[in-house]
């Protein structure tokens, strides 16, 4: 199998929240246009790690990061424009967080921030993003109504569409379906498989069946360390580390 291109290169990442070390010497290569899942018990550092990938930790007081994270060869903790980084790396959270405005304005928000003003151009972006997030058919007749009137599953797909609207390379998803019902979860999972045609997807999930179903690569974390990282099928059928086996088969966690 041809190894696909590395998009993120992490080397010796250590992260502290004040005195507490949340990540210990994490090094990994994340492949482009693949779905990579981070799994592990609560407090293992997986959400912390995903947040380092677009510098969301910058906002947390007392947070210190050492090591390097390269995105397409560029050190993202170096001298770069964080807004540009976040344009390249979109994020979707556990709880859908649409802005209290119309469906249209939610999607147009990012592109407008980046200077796109022409109505025709915005219309095009909004439709493409909503189609890309498989929600266009459900909202096309209510584009100018409040996004808060949508169901939880629709709101989450709207948030994915909002992230897609600025044409990112990477989509970070922190437990994107844990607040959704099985039908909405299924829709988001189907969507993720489509998204990897164009985007690199990195997902934190507590749902191991979900990781097995949708991801190409899985990394298992425990107490801030990356215990094992490999092809999802290998991790869930023949893990190399006993600790991984014990966690995924529910012996602890």
């Amino acid at each position, binding site marked *: 199998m041809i190894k696909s291109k590395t998009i993120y290169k992490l080397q010796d990442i250590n992260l502290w929240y004040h005195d507490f070390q949340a990540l210990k010497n994490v090094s990994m290569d994340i492949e482009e246009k693949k779905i990579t899942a981070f799994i592990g018990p609560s407090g293992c550092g997986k959400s912390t790690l995903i947040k380092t990938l677009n510098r969301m930790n910058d906002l947390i007081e007392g947070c210190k990061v050492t090591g390097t994270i390269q995105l397409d060869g560029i050190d993202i903790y170096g001298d770069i424009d964080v807004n540009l980084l976040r344009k390249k790396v979109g994020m979707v959270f556990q709880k859908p967080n649409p802005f209290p405005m119309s469906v249209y304005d939610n999607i147009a928000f990012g592109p407008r921030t980046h200077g796109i003003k022409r109505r025709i151009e915005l219309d095009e972006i909004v439709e493409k993003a909503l189609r890309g997030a498989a929600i266009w058919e459900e909202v096309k007749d209510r584009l100018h109504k409040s996004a808060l009137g949508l169901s939880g599953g629709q709101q989450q797909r709207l948030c994915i569409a909002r992230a897609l609207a600025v044409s990112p390379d990477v989509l970070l998803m922190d437990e994107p379906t844990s607040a959704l019902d099985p039908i909405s979860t299924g829709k988001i999972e189907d969507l993720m498989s489509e998204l990897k045609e164009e985007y690199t997807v990195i997902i934190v999930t507590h749902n*191991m*069946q979900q990781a*097995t179903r949708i991801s190409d690569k899985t990394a298992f974390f425990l107490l801030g360390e990356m215990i094992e990282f490999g092809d999802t099928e290998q991790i*869930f*059928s*023949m*893990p190399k580390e006993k600790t*991984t*086996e014990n966690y*995924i*088969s*529910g*012996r*602890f*966690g």
Partner: protein
Amino acid sequence: MRLMFDRQLDELKNMLIEMGALIEEAIKKTMQSLKNGDIVLAKSVITGDNDIDDKEMDIEKLALKLLLQQHPVASDLRQISAALKMVTDMERIGDQAADIAEITTYGCVLPPTGLDFITQMAEETSLMVTRSIDAFVKKDLALVKKVKVMDDTVDNLFMQVRSEAIRLLSSSQADGEQIIDLLMIAKYFERIGDHAENIAEWVDYSITGIHKSHSSKE
């Protein structure tokens, strides 16, 4: 935390042990009835095959229930899927013991030299079944290897029976019916050996994650 799941896995192993014991018993009775011309005992092997079939179904039901309820991964998944494959070969062994018993019910009497070989084949194959199931329960790769070597012994014994059949035929020391029965029974045991080896291969997979037939194709 996974108390119930562990209990169910133990139950699955116990059921496999029980099915293995039924098979060993069937082979043993088959041999006894053949040696002593005991038609009643031979018939009990044929009716007893139903118990083996029932056990197969019970194991399949439990394995499928575990797949549904527990979404097993890693070694749990390998053990359950191996069990599902193993019971098919175990059930076939039961059928073949019954096939041999059926020949006995027709009043078959084997030539003494042939009977010696057949007795050895029965002992070897019965031990192969015991060791395969033991290997599964104890996750013992050394036992798996032993079973694979034993299959060569069984194949060898079959070739010896074949030579003996030719010798008996050419020297007119036995009648045609006896010789055909001898060959058929030897062939059944040779197949039982193959099924036991298949079981060992799935045990190998449940321990190592590698199945011989899969890895040889890749």
